[in-house]
């Protein structure tokens, strides 16, 4: 690769790898899987960097690659099991949050998100964390906007159900 492109790629990695990692982590909920997905996607981006860099939104291009890495990994594993998650309070990599008063709700939602199918979780992460439009999510996942709409609706319905079950169980206790 030409040196100017090498430097641009290096700058891109420095500027975006943290955000890409967090998006991957939000979907995989596994530090190592997220790291592998970002590493692999960046490798592929490097292989075609002139093309990626020439696109209107290089970060969106690579984010699509990261999400596809995550989802294709899940397909290869043929499993919907969640990776073992480090408990929030025990994760040394995590900085303290200031949302203590709503931490219980936040944790309950996080646990519920973990029970979504990977593709549904990806839709939720892209919509509510990355704040992408339905069209952008569709492009990222390589599906039609209508599919995003239905996946999103199904995910939200599932989340409401899971949270209501959690609340009911809590009341029983």
């Amino acid at each position, binding site marked *: 690769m*030409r040196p100017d492109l090498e430097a641009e790629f290096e700058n891109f990695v*420095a500027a975006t790898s943290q955000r890409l990692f967090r998006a991957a982590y939000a979907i995989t909920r596994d530090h190592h899987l997220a790291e592998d997905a970002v590493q692999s996607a960046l*490798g592929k981006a*490097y*292989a075609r*960097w002139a093309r990626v860099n020439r696109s209107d939104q290089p970060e969106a291009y690579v984010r699509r690659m990261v999400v596809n890495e995550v989802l294709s990994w899940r397909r290869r594993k043929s499993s919907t099991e969640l990776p073992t998650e480090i408990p929030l309070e025990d994760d040394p990599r995590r*900085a303290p*949050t200031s949302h203590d008063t709503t931490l219980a709700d936040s944790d309950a939602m996080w646990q519920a998100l973990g029970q979504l199918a990977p593709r549904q979780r990806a839709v939720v992460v892209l919509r*509510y964390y990355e704040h992408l439009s339905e069209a952008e999510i569709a492009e990222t996942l390589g599906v039609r906007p209508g599919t995003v709409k239905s996946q999103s609706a199904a995910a939200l319905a599932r989340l409401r159900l899971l949270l209501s079950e959690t609340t009911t169980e809590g009341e029983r206790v």
Partner: protein
Amino acid sequence: MSFDDTITRSIEDHVDGVVAPPADLAAIRRSGRRHRAVTTAAASIGVLAVLTGGFALATSGSDPTGTQVGPSELPAMDFDHGLRAYYDDINGELHMGGQVFALSNVPNLDTSSWATPHGVAYVDDGDVRLLTEDGKSRLLTSEGGAPGGNGDAFGAVVFDAATERLAWLTRREGEVFLVEHEFVDAASETQVWTEVPCEGRECEMLTVAGFDQGMAFVGRLDRDETLVFGGDDVVTLEGFRVADARNGVVLGMGALPAGDPLGKGWRFAEAQGPESLLTFDGAHELYWSSTLRSTAGGAPLRLDVPAKGAEFVNLDSDGSVLVAVTSGGGPQRYFDCEVPSGECTPIGTLKGTSGDPIFLGNDM
């Protein structure tokens, strides 16, 4: 707080504080190079030019500077129609020289490689190797191949068809040298080393951007500037970054040099991008389209590609233009198009699992 807000806040609470490990750029680059491979260039043998400066050494024998090592399980190939090299980085299927084999068998071939009539030259952990048509690879650099041993080769390897020379950069004992490896005949090869003026970090920002008729264009990253080796003195083209040079045409970005700075009457033309390539005759520019822009302001050359969609182009080793066409994530159709007739021949189709078509040795 609304349900939607709770989702956003929950993800932020659990993700924003997570610290990503530092990106391992070296590993990313290694991974990326596994997704690429070989490249383009040359065919004809022309007049042998002689460089001044530096020092030269000659070796002789059928295997003058290296041993038969390198990629395993490669079949013999046929480069008579050019390399015709392209691949799918998902299933790892590499098409080259009429054969199909696994990319993993040639992990160090990448965009810095260059195909020559003698084989494909590429950098492998600081050494330069030549993969020949019979599927074997040998070192072009080795201990004892130059006074003081060889350095650490880096950047691109570029072939000059006119002088039958390869050029690359190498570091040795804190200095950077331009190495020109000449294929004198089947039994002997010669290397000429010339020191490249640079200091500190700028020494890391160099590459061979073009090599034509004995004139080597070494580009700097830290500024739009190109050093030209091959004349009596090193010429500096200030404000101009060379993308490619062929047949006396120098394609680049920035301020076109005025007058005749090389003293050869060569023509300078503006490139559309740093990845632009020139056809062998220097008359047209390849840049993301089957319509090739004239470098002299003349009519474009339109390749007769019998397919519609996004187009990706690369120069093949015999001077033809490889074109890939894909649409909507469908199959990638590959064509070999003759220059200047524009006549195209289908050479293969890939399922298109990787998104963009990829030619070996080209970022386009």
